[in-house]
């Protein structure tokens, strides 16, 4: 997993576990910060930035599918603790599907999409999974919500991609030199 030996003289496995823990913590912090943001008046209810998806997206690319899924599950359990069972189902379904989709897109040989395309694909699949769960839990009438979820999913996905462009070098530095 590690390309460079750490100067702290710890094993690559230890370093990997610590780094995954760091990413999970980062995802939780971003979720918590997002929960504190007031709902924007222009956005429809339920539309969120999905800041913590930045981390699952990075993890899908940098540490592999299973650690990334673990982060998504930890994020889901955290929503369960702080916001209740429905929120946990929503977070788990969206997180697991979007992480898998982003991982798949990252592992197509030709690497067709840039970070923005990946962010959009992740956000849209996240919304799709959540909408499916919402339709099961409440009423199929939530299909009327699809157009807004697509539009705000695209916006949030573009933002996710742009932010990851900026913080990727910092995370890589932590990964290799931490």
């Amino acid at each position, binding site marked *: 997993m590690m390309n460079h030996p750490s100067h702290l003289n710890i094993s690559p496995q230890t370093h990997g576990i610590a780094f995954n823990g760091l990413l999970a913590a980062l995802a939780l912090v971003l979720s918590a910060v997002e929960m504190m943001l007031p709902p924007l008046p222009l956005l429809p209810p339920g539309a969120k930035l999905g800041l913590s998806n930045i981390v699952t997206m990075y993890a899908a690319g940098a540490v592999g599918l299973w650690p990334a899924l673990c982060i998504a599950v930890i994020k889901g359990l955290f929503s369960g603790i702080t916001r209740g069972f429905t929120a946990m189902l929503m977070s788990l379904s969206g997180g697991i599907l979007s992480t898998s989709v982003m991982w798949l897109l990252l592992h197509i040989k030709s690497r067709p999409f840039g970070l923005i395309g990946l962010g*959009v694909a992740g956000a849209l699949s996240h919304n799709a999974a959540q909408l499916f769960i919402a339709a099961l839990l*409440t*009423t199929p009438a939530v299909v009327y919500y699809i157009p807004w979820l697509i539009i705000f999913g695209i916006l949030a996905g573009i933002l996710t*991609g742009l932010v990851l462009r900026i913080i990727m070098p910092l995370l890589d530095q932590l990964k290799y030199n931490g």
Partner: protein
Amino acid sequence: MFKKQDIFLIIPFLLIAAALLIWFGSKPNSGIAVVEKNGAELYRFDLSQQTSAQEIDVGGSYHVKLLLEPGAISFEHSDCRDQICVRTGKLTKPGQAAVCLPAKISIKIVGKNKDFDGYTG
């Protein structure tokens, strides 16, 4: 910054969203208009069954007139001072309401089908 493929991914989804919005918006409104005076129900109109515009004279001391149209209902006239009811305009969706307080007349649209209970995300 945007790869060409990213754009190709985004545009189809935007088109789908636009098409769905237009489709959902063009569906006839299936609400039922309920007219109440002093809290007691006077009339009940099925807006989706309405095919032409029709004026309903509720009368009373303010000569309230309602305008019933396909998919919409509004206060057309009232002698009241504030004209809040008239300025509310057309009601088209379940949940909307307009009230003429001096005349104690209210109109509201209730849904035929079960509507959204709430959202989560």
